[in-house]
């Protein structure tokens, strides 16, 4: 296996020693570039009380390239599609090597707190969100209970 850059070791250590509230990220035993992530739904959002599982992979060129992140838990959100792909600027054009795993996960948590239906990835969800926000939010809550219930 290719040797692990110091930076990744350091980030992993810090994630363990000084975790972000509501977020956990643990590297896989066999592949230290692959992380199992959980994010708690932010308070006062439709995703409150939900625990969402994600996978995060650091490509070979990290930190020159953004980490790849995907939701494993199903979620009703205009910027997250059925496959769990996330529409987030810092994961794409606005990635900068000064960012890190921690900041990316915080951005995702923020995205849960403030869905943006005007820049959608899941078009059907976004449409419903714009048409009838209340209904969409109640659906998001329902899905959270259904798929992201605490065990």
């Amino acid at each position, binding site marked *: 296996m*290719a040797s692990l850059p110091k*930076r990744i*070791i350091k980030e992993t250590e810090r994630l363990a020693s000084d975790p972000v509230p509501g977020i956990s990220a643990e590297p896989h035993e066999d592949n230290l570039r692959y992380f199992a992530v959980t994010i708690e739904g932010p308070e006062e959002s439709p995703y409150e009380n939900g625990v969402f599982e994600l996978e995060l992979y650091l490509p070979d060129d990290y930190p020159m390239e953004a980490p790849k992140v995907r939701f494993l838990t199903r979620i009703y959100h205009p910027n997250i599609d059925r496959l769990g792909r996330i529409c987030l600027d810092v994961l794409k054009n606005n990635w900068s090597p000064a960012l890190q795993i921690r900041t990316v996960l915080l951005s995702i948590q923020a995205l849960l707190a403030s869905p943006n239906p005007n820049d959608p990835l899941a078009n059907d969800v976004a449409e419903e969100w714009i048409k009838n926000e209340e209904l969409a939010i109640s659906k998001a809550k329902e899905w959270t209970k259904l798929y992201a219930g605490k065990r």
Partner: protein
Amino acid sequence: MNYNVSDATDFSHTSIPQLSQLDTLVRCHICKDLLKIPVLTPCSHTFCSLCIREYLTREPKCPLCLSELRESNLRSEFLVNEIIESYRSVRDELLESLKEDQRNNAEKSLIELTDDDNDDDLQIVGTNQKEEVKRDKNEKSVGKVTKPSTSTGLNSLLNSQRDKSKTKEKLAQCPICSNFYPIQALERTHLDECLTMQSLDESTDVKKRTPTPPSPRIKSPKSSSKPKRAVNAKDDISHVDKYLSSFNTGQRRERLPKINFTSMSLSQIKQKLASLSLPTHGSRQNMIARYNHYEVLWNSNFCDAIEPVDESELRRQLASWEASHNPSNGNNGTNIISKMMRRANQGNSYQKLLADFKTDNFQRKSWILMFRKDFKNLIQEAKRSIPRESKTTGSVDNQIAVPENTEKE
């Protein structure tokens, strides 16, 4: 794998936790390590030369403020470089002694609770931490700026006297000037002074400039530690010297240009690589990646570094980059690189060879060379055993045949 990674939070459990800010500031935001060959962007941000150059090959913008940025806009910062190098050389010792201070402090604090009202607050942890920290900071900054007539000075004076009256073991050696001071004084005022003095000027009289340390200076009782310190002192001088003489280094080379490979044929690319004595194996993509990384290494080294290394060292760095960076490139690339690496350290150990035994990387020749004797022995043994076998079987045949013959007869 080396898990010994330094971090700014290392300082949070020392007697001067504020140092973690300094430690953070001298780190590159890309590799998160202490800056190596720092370069300045037009937007006034600083990165390792290598890190930012590598990033700029992908995106022409500053990682911190996202403003547009070209490689040619980068300027090296010799002063920052030397500051960081001298910091790097004392960091471990500094950290160790500050941790030691913290431990001693913790022991002492129990005694101090009773007689020192100002320090009381500092000891009660957890009730009102923010205020404490603030007060702590104020106290520290006051102590740094002003002369010994402030409370800090008095405190340390008091403490130092107490120390003296108690035991001599409470003295600690300053990691920088190697003199012995009472721990309190060392930690509160002396270290700062000593550090600033060090960076200002080595040769000037320390006593003149320091705001007369409240504690008496005590010469180090043993000269045994001297030689080590002398080396350190030399290091520091050389950082100053290096900075001062950094402008007249005549070793600047021309930068390697960016090359547009799309219009080049494979043989042209190979020629280009060969002209720089780079390996020419691998796919077209591999070769382009190799040149691009070499260009980054070259320009960082010859344009930014104070003390550029020579080309063979750059090629070695390239090889190790390729080995660690392109594991997916298949056998061809890694094979030759591993060969290169092996050739570099001749002692082709058995372990290394064995590790590749089942893969394509396995080096038959060196394996055979290593076990030449054993192989010979085996072959000889085999040769010896074959005729013997045939003889024995033959003799058995004969033996069998003989009685038959005799019977017939």
